[in-house]
């Protein structure tokens, strides 16, 4: 009886664990099935590198280069903000903060990570955009810069918390050995701890990038939504996620526009997939380097 019960529980948990695999495969299949029909109308090259996105015009134009570049620009902007902010906070938390400060700062960073994205978007739209608009004398404050800053702040907690984990995985013996040979604190940090945790920190940054490129609500609110190839950080843009969110409601099911939006989603999925594979790859090497098993 007991054995049967144990077996049943084992199968139950196996099924639960494999459920996410089933979901992933399902998502990939649906994405491909719904995305591929557009390539009978537009060649993949024209789709990826076409410069004008007019899905509802007559005749429609499905060039998503402006959308891809918009996503990459705002993600790059987010990196500029979230790397120093996230890695800096992690280093401070790990190296300098006393137990009391840690007790306050860690939960605060975690709360920052759990603020719903619409609140960030709202903040960007009502406070940051007018502020930048006035200080840089811009025609409009909804642009790459505003979006990059907001996304950077959003991704910073992810980067901070994973980097902090990476730093804490560095064995004590590394630090003690460094002190023992006469290195000071700064030398230990820059020559031993950071290199040892380096791939963990890289993983953190890549996951932060995934978060930034996949963010939807915020970019819908603060990026401006113009489907043009950005030429400066003050240009309004239309990242891929914003285009899908804004247009999916209107696109009749099964139309070219509908399939084109799925194709954008597929490309977005592939980009984040590559990011995640890279993160996984780097973090494996990191564990090996520290002599941790898997």
């Amino acid at each position: 009886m007991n054995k049967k019960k144990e077996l049943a529980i084992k199968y139950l948990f196996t099924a639960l664990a494999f459920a996410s695999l089933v979901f992933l495969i399902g998502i990939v299949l649906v994405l491909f099935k719904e995305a591929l029909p557009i390539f009978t109308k537009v060649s993949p090259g024209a789709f990826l590198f076409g410069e004008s996105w007019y899905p509802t015009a007559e005749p429609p134009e499905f060039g998503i280069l402006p959308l891809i570049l918009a996503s990459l620009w705002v993600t790059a902007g987010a990196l500029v903000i979230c790397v120093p902010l996230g890695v800096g906070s992690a280093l401070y938390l790990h190296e300098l903060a006393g137990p009391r400060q840690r007790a306050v700062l860690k939960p605060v960073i975690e709360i920052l990570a759990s603020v719903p994205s619409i609140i960030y978007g709202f903040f960007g739209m009502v406070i940051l955009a007018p502020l930048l608009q006035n200080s840089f004398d811009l025609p409009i404050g909804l642009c790459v810069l505003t979006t990059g800053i907001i996304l950077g702040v959003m991704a910073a907690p992810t980067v901070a918390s994973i980097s902090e984990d990476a730093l804490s995985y560095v064995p004590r013996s590394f630090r003690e050995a460094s002190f023992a040979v006469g290195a000071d604190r700064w030398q230990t940090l820059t020559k031993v701890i950071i290199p040892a945790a380096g791939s963990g920190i890289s993983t953190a940054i890549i996951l932060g990038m995934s978060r930034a490129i996949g963010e939807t609500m915020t970019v819908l609110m603060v990026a401006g939504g113009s489907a043009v190839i950005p030429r400066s950080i003050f240009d309004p843009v239309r990242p891929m996620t914003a285009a899908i969110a804004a247009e999916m409601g209107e696109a009749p099911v099964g139309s070219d526009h509908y399939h084109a939006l799925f194709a954008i989603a597929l490309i977005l999925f592939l980009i984040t997939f590559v990011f995640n594979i890279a993160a996984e790859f780097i973090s494996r090497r990191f564990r090996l380097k520290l002599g941790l098993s898997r």
Partner: protein
Amino acid sequence: MKKLLIAVLVLNLSAPLFAEKVVLEGSTTVLPIAQKAAEVFMKNNPSADLSVRGGGSGVGIASIIDGTCDIADASRAIKPAELEKAAKRGRDLKAHVIAMDGITHIVHPSNTITNLSRAQIKEIYTSRAANWKKFGGPDLKIVVISRDSASGTFEAFSEIVLDKKKVRPDAIMQASNQGIASIVSRTPGAIGYVGLGYISPSVKILSVDGVMPDKEAVLKNKYPISRPLFMYTNGTPGGTIKKFIDFVKSPEGQKIVSEEGFIGLNPKQ
């Protein structure tokens, strides 16, 4: 004790059955009317349970065809492609005109422009006319603001003003009337268009071809960019849906329409 428990359970389960749930979805232009009307209607009919959502005319019509809403708010007439889709799904959509609206062009209050012709608006929205100076305004870059393609306001605007020509690609796209109104109120060089219900002292209304978009001009068809607002139902409505549509068309409902800044169907009000 057990019986009591069962009784309570049964009551709890059956309570939602008595409240007739009606979902309204669609145009953000119609949204303020729908919301206010639903509020008053539910006060008068406590058993009715109405929920109102925005999303855009296209979203509303798609939802009623899919059967996920009961009344679709729309600021444009249904398109042939949508009718075809509805027919395929066995739905027979009925249009109810509930108000009239003028698509109003707004600029920042500091802008000295007061009037634009339809041809000028078309030029601003479709070519790369970059500066207000060209149209007699201040020396300021024009920031063109438009609605996303799910918007009925966009479709009506595109048909009446742009002759279906493409909006310039660098136009800022917003998902709602309110989004446009709030950007225009904060952006000195901006121009945008909204339903009459979204004008406020923080933006400046332009006359088009010399006509201000007021009640009389819209009703007498003098204002060039006027249009009816719709609620679509599946077939001839019955029950709560019919009661609600009748309410919106009634003098009380039409009073809400004018209070929200739109134009009631009965000119006497």
